[in-house]
C-alpha cells in the first residue's frame, strides 16, 4: 500500500503519524529543526522560506499551546496564518468536515494544520485532497483523537537528543494516562524507530490499552519499580475531559500512587530528565517540586516545539 504520508519520490507529503514514518525522514526533521532554534535570537525573528504561503489552522478541538506554537512557527517562516476555531463556526451550523476543507481549498490554502477529536480525521482530509488532485496542499496532524500527535512526538525526540545525544543506550519511561493519550502512541513509535532499547510504560491497569506490549514496551504498574535507573521520564497529562466511567478513584489517589514526586524520581538515574507535554496538572500527575526542579526540561520542550514545527512545515512546503 502507498504510504499516505509520502509522495511518489518518497518525500514527506503530509505528516499524519510517526507510525511507519521512515527513520531517515524522522532524523531529517530533527536535523532540519536544529538551525531554526537560532532564529528567535535574531533582530528580525523571521525567515522568508514560506513567504506567500497560506496556512490554515483547523482546530476542531480546543488547544491553546499547540495552536499557538504552530502559529508562531508558520509566522517565523513568513507564511500567512489563518486560525479557524471550527467548534464555533460552520461545523456548528452543520457543515461537514470535507465541505469545510473544499471551501478552504477554494481560498487557496497551501497547508492545513488539523486537530480533531476523531482519530483519522487528518488522514481523511489527506485522502480527500489526493482524490481531488490537490497534491499541492499539505496536511499536518496536530492531534487526532487517541491516535497520534506526531509533532509532539518529534519535539520530544528533539528534546531527548538535545540532552542525551544518543538514543541507542537509553531507558525511557512513559508515565500516566496511556489509554487516552495520542502523545504516548507517537512517542512509542518514534522511540522504537530511533532504536531505544528499553521503553517502559507505567500506569494503572485501567489507563493502559489492552495488548500495549505489542507496541514493544515493557509494562509496569509500580512507579518505584518502573522508574529504576531510567534516563528519561515522560509524564502524560491525566485527561479528565476524556474520562467517562470509573477508571480512577480520585485524582488524589492517582497522585499518591502514580504522581511523580522527588522521592519517586530519586529511583531514576541522577541525570535523568523529566518531560511533560503540557498542560500540567500539578499535584495530580506531577509534583510542583519536580515540575520546577533542576531535572525538568518542560519549558525547553515548548521552545524546541517551535523549531520542530518550522522544520516540518518547510519540508512539506516545497
Amino acid at each position: 500500500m502507498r504510504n499516505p504520508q509520502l509522495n511518489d519520490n518518497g518525500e514527506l507529503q503530509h505528516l499524519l503519524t510517526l507510525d511507519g514514518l521512515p527513520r531517515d525522514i524522522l532524523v531529517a526533521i530533527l536535523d532540519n529543526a536544529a538551525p531554526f532554534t537560532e532564529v528567535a535570537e535574531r533582530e528580525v525573528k523571521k525567515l522568508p522560506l514560506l513567504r506567500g504561503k497560506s496556512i490554515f489552522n483547523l482546530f476542531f478541538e480546543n488547544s491553546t499551546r499547540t495552536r499557538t506554537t504552530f502559529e508562531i512557527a508558520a509566522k517565523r517562516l513568513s507564511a500567512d496564518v489563518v486560525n479557524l476555531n471550527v467548534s464555533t463556526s460552520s461545523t456548528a451550523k452543520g457543515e461537514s468536515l470535507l465541505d469545510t476543507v473544499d471551501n478552504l481549498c477554494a481560498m487557496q490554502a497551501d497547508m492545513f494544520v488539523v486537530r480533531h477529536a476523531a482519530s483519522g480525521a487528518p488522514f481523511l482530509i489527506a485522502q480527500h485532497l489526493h482524490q481531488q488532485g490537490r497534491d499541492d496542499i499539505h496536511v499536518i496532524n496536530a492531534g487526532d483523537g487517541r491516535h497520534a500527535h506526531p509533532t509532539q512526538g518529534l519535539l520530544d525526540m528533539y528534546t531527548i537528543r538535545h540532552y542525551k545525544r544518543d538514543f541507542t543506550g537509553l531507558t525511557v519511561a512513559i508515565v500516566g494516562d496511556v489509554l487516552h493519550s495520542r502523545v504516548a502512541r507517537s512517542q512509542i513509535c518514534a522511540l522504537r524507530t530511533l532504536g531505544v532499547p528499553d521503553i517502559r510504560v507505567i500506569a494503572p491497569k485501567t489507563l493502559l490499552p489492552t495488548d500495549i506490549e505489542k507496541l514493544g514496551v515493557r509494562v509496569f504498574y509500580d512507579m518505584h519499580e518502573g522508574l529504576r535507573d531510567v534516563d528519561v521520564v515522560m509524564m502524560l497529562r491525566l485527561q479528565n475531559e476524556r474520562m467517562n466511567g470509573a477508571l480512577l478513584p480520585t485524582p488524589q489517589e492517582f497522585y499518591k500512587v502514580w504522581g511523580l514526586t522527588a522521592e519517586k524520581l530519586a529511583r531514576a538515574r541522577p541525570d535523568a530528565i523529566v518531560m511533560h507535554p503540557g498542560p500540567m496538572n500539578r499535584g495530580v500527575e506531577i509534583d510542583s517540586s519536580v515540575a520546577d526542579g533542576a531535572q525538568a526540561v518542560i519549558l525547553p520542550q515548548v521552545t524546541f516545539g517551535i523549531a520542530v514545527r518550522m522544520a516540518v512545515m518547510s519540508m512539506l512546503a516545497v
Partner: protein
Amino acid sequence: MSNLDAEALCATLVELIRPHVTPATTLVGIHTGGVWLAERLHTALGITQPLGAIDVSYYRDDFGSKGLHAQTRRTDIPFRVEGADVIIVDDVLYTGRTTRAAVNELFDFGRPARVDLAVLIDRGGRELPVYARYCAHTLPVSLPPTQNLELMCSESGQLNLRVIDA
C-alpha cells in the same frame, strides 16, 4: 586554466583587503567554501572582531523548486550587526544570487554601516547587479553553465580550486 592556484589567490586576496582593514572590520563567510576562506583571511589579516558564518539556504530564491533537502548549517553572527563594517566572503562569484541571499539574511540581524564582498574568483555569468570590491582573479572568459568551479579544503587545510561538470 593555469591561474587556479587557490593558495596563491588567497594570498592575493589578503593583500587586496589589508589596506582597508580597520579595528571595526568584521568578516562573514558563506558556507561552506566561503567559511574556509574567511577563516584564512581572519587569521592572515589579524582581524580582532569574531568571525561570522552564514548559511543562505533559507534565503535562496530557488527554495521553492529545490526544497529543504541538504543539511543546513547554523548561521552564526557573533557580533552586533547594527552599524557594523562587514565583508562577506565567498569562494566563487557566479550569478550573484548567493550574495543577494547573504545580504538579505545579514540585514535580518540589524543594519550594517557598510557591506563589501570578497571572493577568490569571479567566474562571470552574473544575473544580478552584484559587484565584488575584493576579487583575487576574474576569469577572462566566463565559465559555461555546464561547469562548476568548486573550492576544496584538504585535511591539512590546503585550499584547492577545481572545475567539475555540473
